[in-house]
């Protein structure tokens, strides 16, 4: 439900404003709004930030930026504090220096780690290749005044090596040696050593043959592979110790500065919030006015605190309901603990407007019911319940995962209940074991299942129209009447249909048709010529609930096919494996498809009848609270 709000006005001497704002921040109850325009002719103007305050604001934003960057780099979890009063100027200066230094140092350490990681990756990449040349290096050392070329040849081009040897012999005679070593990758490492005077001719030859020489990284002993390999290996051995040293330094930095940075973040955010609400204050030369909303149930607490702290200096009065419009009031959804997870489903949409209806309790009942009817299997329900329990166990309170786990619970319960109604345990396995359906067998009785699905649609849509009437009756009574009449016409059509197929006595048919003939022109008068189209759309919406039957039948069919695999494919063991695999696939589909379609039935069919989005989120002026990770 949407909780009731009250709008209050605070009046007091202007010199008390900073103290009042601090008390309001401590209370954390008032959602501030600019004062009413009605007060402006009485000399009231909006308070503006003084130049000094604007400068302070920019300065604090810069410091907060540094603090958040430093805390992010060092992975310091922010903690909300409750600082006593505004931060002193010397504290701000100290925090500014600390934040800037810590940020710079943290960024430097992160950069150092990145460089070390990249260096390690580079060495590891080259290691396999260059270590292949290690066995060839002895040969290189025997030619102290020669030039060495390191070449990689694809395994399929191994025939090119004798040709290379022949070309070299033809070009420079016998002043060279070629050594080869096969690599694990299938390539061949080739070392060509030539006498220094012939080096230029060999380079030309290699270039003409498009043979790529492997470059030796310059930072490891220049161009000589014999000095590069040991240098690289030594460096590789040093890197873990250097990484550990840098990480230790990061931890020390986080440990030494974390608490202070956290305190600074909290105090500075609070001060920034205080500065941000100043333009929402109305002021005259000597007085201030503050207006805002708070939950009605908290009003007495609020008034008592203001009276206690300011005696008669600050007056609190309630702004009468006639002076404010519903759409301006902020919205707080408040539901019992069991229903609260389903607020997440509603929050996908913008919040409902104040004074309209929060659909959470209805979603909490119908969403699991639709899901359960679509899956409708004791076995799948139990597996789902286990999955929900596991998720609940591994998740943190108030996290998204915990909400998902709490939604899975009722869905699993409804799935098991529907499983008993349809006599399904992993498809028709239950029937083979003697399980009897309490209602009907979905596998056989498709038409009763279709009727059940459409009947549910009728109930859900009529409920939606009823909620639409309740939601609109005060603001738009004409539209509310139209919704109500649409609901009545749907009932009349149903009565006529049931009478036509002789479920009800034929007298109902005549009465229903007469009722429809009377209601139709009234509906056009109330809602215009779009009314018949909307009525037809509503019938389409009801038929849309047939998807419950379609998905349900598809689910049971897949489960039956899975069970038939045992014995149908080769040995029992193979069949069993395929059956399990098929059930797994069916379960995965059962998690996804019914969820999407149950959501769709709510968002498109149900919400369309009454939901009025555009509510303002209740954001009381209070102390800064850091965002929860994973929430």
């Amino acid at each position: 439900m949407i909780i009731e709000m009250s709008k209050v006005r605070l009046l007091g001497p202007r010199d008390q404003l900073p103290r009042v704002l601090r008390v309001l921040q401590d209370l954390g109850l008032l959602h501030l709004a600019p004062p009413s325009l009605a007060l402006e002719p009485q000399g009231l103007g909006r308070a503006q930030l003084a130049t000094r305050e604007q400068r302070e604001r920019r300065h604090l934003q810069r410091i907060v930026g540094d603090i958040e960057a430093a805390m992010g780099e060092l992975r310091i979890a922010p903690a909300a504090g409750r600082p006593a009063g505004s931060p002193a100027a010397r504290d701000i200066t100290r925090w500014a220096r600390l934040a800037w230094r810590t940020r710079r140092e943290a960024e430097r350490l992160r950069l150092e780690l990145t460089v070390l990681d990249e260096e390690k990756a580079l060495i590891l990449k080259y290691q396999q290749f260059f270590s292949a040349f290690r066995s060839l290096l002895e040969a290189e050392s025997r030619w102290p005044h020669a030039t060495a070329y390191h070449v990689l040849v694809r395994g399929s081009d191994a025939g090119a090596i004798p040709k290379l040897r022949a070309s070299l012999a033809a070009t420079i005679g016998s002043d060279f040696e070629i050594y080869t070593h096969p690599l694990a990758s299938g390539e061949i490492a080739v070392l060509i050593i030539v006498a220094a005077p012939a080096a230029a001719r060999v380079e030309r030859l290699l270039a003409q043959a498009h043979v790529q020489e492997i470059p030796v990284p310059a930072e490891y002993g220049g161009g000589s592979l014999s000095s590069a390999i040991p240098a690289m290996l030594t460096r590789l051995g040093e890197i873990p110790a250097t990484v550990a040293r840098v990480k230790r330094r990061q931890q020390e930095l986080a440990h030494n500065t974390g608490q202070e940075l956290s305190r600074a973040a909290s105090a500075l955010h609070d001060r920034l919030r205080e500065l941000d609400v100043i333009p929402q204050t109305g002021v005259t030369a000597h007085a201030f006015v503050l207006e805002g909303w708070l939950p009605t149930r908290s009003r007495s607490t609020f008034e008592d605190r203001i009276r206690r702290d300011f005696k008669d200096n600050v007056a609190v009065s309630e702004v009468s309901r006639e002076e404010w419009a519903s759409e301006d009031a902020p919205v707080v959804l408040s539901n019992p603990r069991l229903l609260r997870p389903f607020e997440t489903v509603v929050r996908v949409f913008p919040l409902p407007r104040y004074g309209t209806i929060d659909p959470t309790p209805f979603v909490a009942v119908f969403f699991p019911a639709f899901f359960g009817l679509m899956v409708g299997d004791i076995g799948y329900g139990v597996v789902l319940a286990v999955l929900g329990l596991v998720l609940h166990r591994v998740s943190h309170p108030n996290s998204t995962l915990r909400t998902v786990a709490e939604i899975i619970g009722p869905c699993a319960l409804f799935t098991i209940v529907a499983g008993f109604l349809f006599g399904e345990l992993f498809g028709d396995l239950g029937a083979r074991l003697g399980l009897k359906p309490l209602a009907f067998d979905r596998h056989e009785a498709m038409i009763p299942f279709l009727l059940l699905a459409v009947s549910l649609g009728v109930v859900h849509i009529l409920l939606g129209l009823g909620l639409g009437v309740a939601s609109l009756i005060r603001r738009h009574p004409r539209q509310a009447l139209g919704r109500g009449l649409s609901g009545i016409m749907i009932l009349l059509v149903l009565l006529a249909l049931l009478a036509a197929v002789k479920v009800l006595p034929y007298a109902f048919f005549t009465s229903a048709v007469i009722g429809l003939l009377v209601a139709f022109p009234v509906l056009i008068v109330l809602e215009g010529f779009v009314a018949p189209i909307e009525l037809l759309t509503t019938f389409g919406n009801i038929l849309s609930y047939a998807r419950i039957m379609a998905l349900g039948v598809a689910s049971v069919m897949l489960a039956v096919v899975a069970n038939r695999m045992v014995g149908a494919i080769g040995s029992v063991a193979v069949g069993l494996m395929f059956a399990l695999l098929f059930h797994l696939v069916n379960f995965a589909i059962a998690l996804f498809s019914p969820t999407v379609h149950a959501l769709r039935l709510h968002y498109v069919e149900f919400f369309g009848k009454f939901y009025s989005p555009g509510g303002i989120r209740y954001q009381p002026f209070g102390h800064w609270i850091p965002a929860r990770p994973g929430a």
Partner: protein
Amino acid sequence: MEATVLMTIAAAVAVGIPALATAWAQSRIGPAMAAALAEKPELNTTAILMIAIPETMVILGFVVAAAILFR
């Protein structure tokens, strides 16, 4: 032709043509939603719903087919 054969063909047509229509609609919505998600990841729920909307055709086709076969 026997009535059973005709009914079976009718059921196949009832589910087959909407299935093709659904596939075509989803093939147009899918890339559009993927592009939208690249710009606005918060539209993920809307994307799932958009993909699910054309499925109504094949679902109703299936219902009609079931009604033909099991009447």
